[in-house]
């Protein structure tokens, strides 16, 4: 009896605490909508556990405030089915447009179809949606980013030598596009040879292990391209004193840790996405859609190369 009461109390407490904790994120952005208050926009974000998406949300909220529209943000916690429910709720809240940052490009299709039935325009941000028609996709150009990385790395190593590629989780669109861009970009340099491409799952510890192993079979490399900064940081750990000197490393994403490594000189460059810009563009176009304007199918938000020279641009934001 007493144990039951205790368990019940514990469950209630946990729910209460988490409810308090999450209410802050899910209703934020609704403030400051004094003038254009009749335009309501919903944004379902894949996860707020990752600083990248927090920046995306911040950009979206700032833009909503500027345009004077009401923005409701929900966190799908990387659960595709939860995201479908959230979009469904948006439709019943009479949103004029819905922005989705898909947990999974394929699993988002049902959510899009729900919005379609209610004739609410839908915009995908950061990741596309497969198998359903949407008004617009706002995303970073990962292929262009890969190309940029190739150019920057080539410049760093004097356009010759052996390089290796650390790949992300096999089969993901990010890994595919970045790798494809890099491969295309590096072709322009006949004196650079890609001697190995191995997966390290976007993970820092795996980046360390895989780089250590690759150094055994390819001790003479002069460049590394890692498809994200986490793996790049692992690779730097494996390279030790060589990093930034005999071997130049290029990463992707421009994470805070990555930028710190650029500052320290161990990471040569990182291809920075601009999540805040992604959020801003998405809201801007959502408002256009809400007003019935025609949208172009895709908006490619540019990526930028972060190096020691332009570091202040990124650390400030």
């Amino acid at each position: 009896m007493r144990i039951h009461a205790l368990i019940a109390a514990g469950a209630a407490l946990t729910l209460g605490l988490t409810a308090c904790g999450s209410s802050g994120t899910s209703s934020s952005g609704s403030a400051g909508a004094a003038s254009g208050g009749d335009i309501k926009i919903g944004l379902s974000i894949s996860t707020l556990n990752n600083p990248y998406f927090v920046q995306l949300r911040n950009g979206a909220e700032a833009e909503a405030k500027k345009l004077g529209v009401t923005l409701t943000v929900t966190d799908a916690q990387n659960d595709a089915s939860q995201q479908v429910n959230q979009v469904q709720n948006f439709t019943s809240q009479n949103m004029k447009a819905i922005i989705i940052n898909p947990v999974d490009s394929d699993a988002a299709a049902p959510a899009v179809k729900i919005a379609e039935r209610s004739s609410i325009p839908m915009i995908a941000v950061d990741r596309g949606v497969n198998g359903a028609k949407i008004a617009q996709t706002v995303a970073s150009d990962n292929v262009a980013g890969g190309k940029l990385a190739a150019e920057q790395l080539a410049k760093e190593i004097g356009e010759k030598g052996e390089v290796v590629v650390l790949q992300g989780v096999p089969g993901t669109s990010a890994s595919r596009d970045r790798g494809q861009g890099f491969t295309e970009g590096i072709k322009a340099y006949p004196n650079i040879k890609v001697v190995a491409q191995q997966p390290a799952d976007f993970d820092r510890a795996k980046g360390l292990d895989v780089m250590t192993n690759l150094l055994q079979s390819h001790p003479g490399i002069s460049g590394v391209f890692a498809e994200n900064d986490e793996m790049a940081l692992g690779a730097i750990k494996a390279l030790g004193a060589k990093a930034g000197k005999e071997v130049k490393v290029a990463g992707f994403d421009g994470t805070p840790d990555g930028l710190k490594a650029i500052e320290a000189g161990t990471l040569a460059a990182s291809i920075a996405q601009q999540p805040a810009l992604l959020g801003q563009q998405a809201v801007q176009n959502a408002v256009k859609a809400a007003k019935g304007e025609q949208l172009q199918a895709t908006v490619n938000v540019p990526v930028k190369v972060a190096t020691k020279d332009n570091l202040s641009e990124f650390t400030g934001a």
Partner: protein
Amino acid sequence: MPVSTNVLAGRSPARNLLAENGSLAALVVLVVALSLLSGDFLTVTNLLNVGVQAAVTAILAFGSTFVIITGGIDLSVGAVAALSAIVLAWTAADTGLPWPLATLVALAVGVGCGLVNAALIAYGKLPPFIATLAMLGVARGLALVVAQGSPIEMPEAVSHLGDTVGGYLPVPVLVMALMGVVAAVLLNRTYAGRAMYAIGGNEEAARLSGIAVSRQKLVTYALSGAFAAVAGIVLASRLASAQPQAASGYELDAIAAVVIGGASLSGGKGKALGTLVGALILAVLRNGLNLLSVSAFWQQVVIGVVIALAVLLDTLRRRSSR
């Protein structure tokens, strides 16, 4: 039927040999094959690398060995490892606690998670799978909460655990060896260890022989938590950074290592040395796949096949012992 006589007489000892030394034989085969396939494999440096890469999995797996011997399972070890490392880095960085104290706090977190697991299992009568699955979520979530989703730098003194002694002998390998010896001694020489075998072999018989089963489960899962904390600290030290998402999925590697090493998932069987061999097989495999530049997709296939072979070995052994 003289032919069938020979076959029958010869089959069981061969099977026994396979069961006793199956994992060691597999490791030897793997090493020989890789030495032939890649000239870079059989070098002292590379073998030390393999040792370092096996270390975290092996330490986690030693902890899981205790649990699996009692017939349980601990799915939370990877998450607990991450949480312990985060707590260490956070207490040292944010609260300014001296690193030895922060390390003790981190170990206490690991032990605490294990005790909660055991309490849910022994007193709450939850199946170990469910109790530790819940802990996996809680520990991973708490790691994210404490770290606010971002990596925290490890105190420099602790980060030396990721270095080498005299620029040559990697500390993670030493820690792995130390934890392996601790695990072996615990299992073979102590009351707690012998009780684990008895509980896993037949819980009711153990209870009726006066072994305090619930209390011994507390010890077992607390040890698993403590080993997970050590693994987490070693992992974070190698990266000089504690990450909330570190070691995700490592619990499955740990379980695979234990089972490859000859333990039975139904309990009562398992050895620290076998677990070490299991962890080494996984590390050698991953290292070799990198050296041979096997494509990303095929790597997953190969690793999957090895894990399947591990389970096959387990069932084969059970069949031959019947």
